[in-house]
């Protein structure tokens, strides 16, 4: 029942993820951070199998950092998204000896970033290495409920308050219409000032949220 969605506004991109770490019917914790700061101006929101999610996000994070150390310049959001997609694609058809072995990462990703010349952008990358540059996107059961909400209310160049209001509308839909809706959500934003946490929406107060 993982919910990850995001949208691009005027000069910023916002991504929202639920914060439940679930194993079967057991909820391990309700303040799990699924949106990682990839570098100063990028966020990666990942949903999927627990081990793969963290493993893959960390792998991309370290490679993005290595690029910056090696070359003195950060990757653009587009380059980082394409690199991420390529890593997912490579794992789908790995040649081992004479046969192709599938070892896919079961992770869906929304990559949001801000570049100085091109502004904010959002990339949809699914576990089969589909890549789309989009204005709004959602993964998981959330997509059934939030995409139509966003289709109705989204317009290009939304202000931060308008975007947060739309996010709240989506969260309300998820809470009211999804049979096992996650109780808590975190919103993170990236704009010219960088990537940072924006707000939490908690219907179940948990221990103080962990910060990256």
């Amino acid at each position, binding site marked *: 029942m993982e919910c990850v969605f995001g949208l691009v506004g005027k000069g910023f991109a916002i991504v929202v993820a639920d914060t439940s770490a679930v194993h079967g019917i057991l909820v391990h914790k309700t303040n799990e951070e699924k949106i990682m700061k990839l570098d100063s101006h990028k966020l990666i929101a990942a949903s999927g199998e627990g081990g793969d999610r963290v493993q893959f996000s960390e792998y991309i994070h370290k490679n993005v950092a290595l690029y910056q150390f090696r*070359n003195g*310049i950060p990757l*653009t959001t587009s*380059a980082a998204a*394409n*690199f991420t997609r390529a890593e997912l694609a490579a794992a789908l058809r790995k040649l081992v000896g004479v046969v192709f072995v599938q070892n896919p990462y079961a992770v869906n990703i929304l990559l949001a970033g801000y570049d100085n*010349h091109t502004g904010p952008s959002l990339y949809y990358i699914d576990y089969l290495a589909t890549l789309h540059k989009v204005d709004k996107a959602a993964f998981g059961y959330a997509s059934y409920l939030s995409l139509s909400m966003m289709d109705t209310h989204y317009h290009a160049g939304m202000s931060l308050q308008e975007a947060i209001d739309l996010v709240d509308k989506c969260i309300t839909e998820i809470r009211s219409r999804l049979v096992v809706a996650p109780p808590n959500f975190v919103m993170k934003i990236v704009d010219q000032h960088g990537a940072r946490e924006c707000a939490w929406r908690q219907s179940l107060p948990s221990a103080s949220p962990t910060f990256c």
Partner: protein
Amino acid sequence: MSRRYDSRTTIFSPEGRLYQVEYAMEAIGNAGSAIGILSKDGVVLVGEKKVTSKLLQTSSSTEKMYKIDDHVACAVAGIMSDANILINTARVQAQRYTYAYQEPMPVEQLVQSLCDTKQGYTQFGGLRPFGVSFLFAGWEKNFGFQLYMSDPSGNYGGWKAGAIGANNQAAQSILKQDYKDDITREEAVQLALKVLSKTMDSTSLTSEKIELAEVFLSPSGKVKYEVCSPEALNKLLVKFGVTQPATDTA
């Protein structure tokens, strides 16, 4: 005494020198020269052609200049067959980057990657180094127009103006005197041709003996690499006074 340490390419001499690398640079010192100049609005490359026989079938291919990717080109000096291998390697590296990142490879990263390859041949494998020096000219959105020079050791540097091949020291000293930071592309062409005419053996330049290429931005903002046609080159040579005009046009 040093002869004892020549045959193995990947060991130091007692004085701390790598003889094979130095000998490779000697080989390049006998090859046709090439000069590169960085200007505000482009990079200019000129090269001295060594193969000037009338029997040579002229085609559209060049002897000294090669395009690595849409935004990077190079001039070579040294053993041509070695150069071909490295040019192909550079082309593959550039495409591999674009395949991964869907963006043109930053010029310095391309140069660095190729130089890492060259360095490998000075440290392991027991193979001789490549007998080629390069002048790389390119443009990318991070740092604009750039010029890099690399040699068989795998060292490279970013330059405002540089020369490789025969008489490169003489060429470099003239460039040091005459180069100015705000030089335009047209002035750079003139300077490059002037320096080449001073350092080449022949008395006058013709389009048969030299090549000229430029990396610049078109009005629409796209990077362009253009090799000057022989006709246009001849006109330039006459204009800058580095050649005698053909007697039958007098």
